[in-house]
């Protein structure tokens, strides 16, 4: 096994890009996208997500820094990448199939590849309609189908849920979930829709004003230090916890669990049982990605 076989799908180091003497759109950005992960690339509008992806795809040149794709220079690995950047970029006067046929020929792929990708995005029936008559969701799916031509090992999707209605977002989510299951695919999904990314990503990178604030597996981030506890008598439970000098938050809603900080679940369980209370719920509280995001932004500010 050589280096290229164990290298991450994408690794950038010190990536920097400015436009016209303004503050850097991407500033000393070093990210690592593990192979076969679904990497949620998060940030507000204008945070530098699209610029970063353009740099990775060779659409823009970095001022500084390096990019490695599967351990290789971007130019070498370009054939392994499929992408959808900013907009679906389709020819309206052509049909869905004709649009795919153009990219298929440019990539030197067999004609059967078109049917395969149409099947993946569930657009086979609409393939012979002109794209001008497509809904936004259909356009997004066709653009993803185009990005899937040739079974790329890295798929880069920039705001794939942008402008979609709730049904379109749900369809997109299920499509994104099924892609990595289909084979050796790494997926980078840039988005400002945190809740959507939370549902599909295995790893997240958070960018703010061009700088990386945070990068980690989502599972590591979402496990917080707080513990949720419910008993038959939450008021008595709160008193017990207070006597043990534990910080306890009582939610407003009736029947909601208490949130306890500064103690492992085992100790809390012992306290409740020793106090003669019926323990009905005990769990580590998961942090929502939105909460993590706002904490990180506040910290950066």
């Amino acid at each position, binding site marked *: 096994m050589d280096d290229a076989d164990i290298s991450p799908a994408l690794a950038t180091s010190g990536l920097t890009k400015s436009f016209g003497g303004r503050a850097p759109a991407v500033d000393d950005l070093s990210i690592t996208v593990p192979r076969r992960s679904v990497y949620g690339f998060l940030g507000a509008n204008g945070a530098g997500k699209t610029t970063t992806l*353009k740099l990775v*795809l*060779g*659409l*823009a*040149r970095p001022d500084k820094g390096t990019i490695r794709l599967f351990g290789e220079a971007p130019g070498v690995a*370009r*054939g392994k*990448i499929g*992408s*959808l*950047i*900013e*907009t*679906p*970029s*389709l*020819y*309206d*006067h*052509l049909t869905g199939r*004709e649009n795919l*046929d*153009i*990219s298929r*020929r*440019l*990539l*030197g792929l067999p004609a059967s590849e078109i049917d395969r990708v149409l099947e993946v995005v569930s657009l086979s029936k609409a393939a012979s309609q002109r794209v001008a008559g497509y809904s936004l969701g259909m356009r997004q799916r066709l*653009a993803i189908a*185009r990005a899937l031509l040739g079974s790329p090992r890295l798929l880069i999707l920039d705001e794939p849920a942008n402008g979609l209605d709730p049904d379109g977002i749900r369809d997109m989510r299920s499509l994104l979930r099924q892609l990595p299951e289909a084979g050796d695919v790494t997926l980078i999904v840039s988005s400002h829709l945190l809740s959507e990314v939370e549902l599909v990503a295995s790893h997240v990178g958070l960018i703010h004003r061009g700088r990386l604030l945070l990068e980690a597996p989502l599972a590591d981030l979402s496990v917080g230090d707080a513990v949720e506890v419910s008993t038959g008598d939450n008021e008595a439970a709160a008193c017990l916890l207070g006597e043990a000098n534990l910080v306890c938050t009582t939610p407003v809603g009736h029947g909601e669990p208490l949130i306890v900080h500064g103690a492992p679940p085992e100790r809390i369980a012992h306290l409740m049982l020793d106090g003669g209370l019926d323990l009905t719920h005990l769990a580590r509280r998961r942090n929502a990605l939105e909460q993590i995001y706002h904490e990180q932004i506040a910290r950066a500010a």
Partner: protein
Amino acid sequence: MLHRFVIAEFLKLRRSLTLFLCVAAPSCVVALNTIMWLRSDRAAPIGEFAVGASSLWAFGMLPLAITALGVLLAQMEHVPRSWLHILTLPGARPNVFLAKALVMLVLIAFMSTVLWVETLLGAKLVDLLRDDMSGEIYPGGLAALLSLMAAAATLAAMLQLWVALRFKSFVPPLVLGISATFIAIASTSSKEAIYFPWLMAAKIMSEPQKQQVALTLGSVGGVLALILMVVHLSRREA
């Protein structure tokens, strides 16, 4: 690799305005020329019908058609922002720009062919409807003339395409093409006109003694402009 991009460019032309333009522009010239000849009382050799069509083409319609062609070919990519997809494909730079240029030159040759066929048909129609026509039209000579004019128009075509691909807006190439056509018409009799790219095709027929100069400047200059355009656009960021 280049052939894939050229084929892709041709596939994009299906049901496009570009193809419509390529048929409509020469057809307008022949239709106008035919109407003028049918309304005229002057007896003339039918060979002059071809001269009339070629003149209308060279001085007016060809520069305007080249302008529109460049704009349509470029806007086909600018409007859907398809550079964001195409330029990520392996080998896209510089093949995509080279393919665009080759397709434009082929389409100019196609327009010249349509003009040639329609001119012969128009002459036949005038000959049938008027009984005072004399002489005959020489298809070979007309084909040679239109071919030379197309070759001499290469420089203007590449300059138009360059500007059209460089700017997302269609305004700069339109302003360039329309202004250049007006300047060409206004300055056609000047000594320096032969050096004006938008007049080189016209000079092929209006000044036979300078035909070689116009042809060389237009075609060799066109190839140089093509190379510079491809280098420049390939280095630009999307």
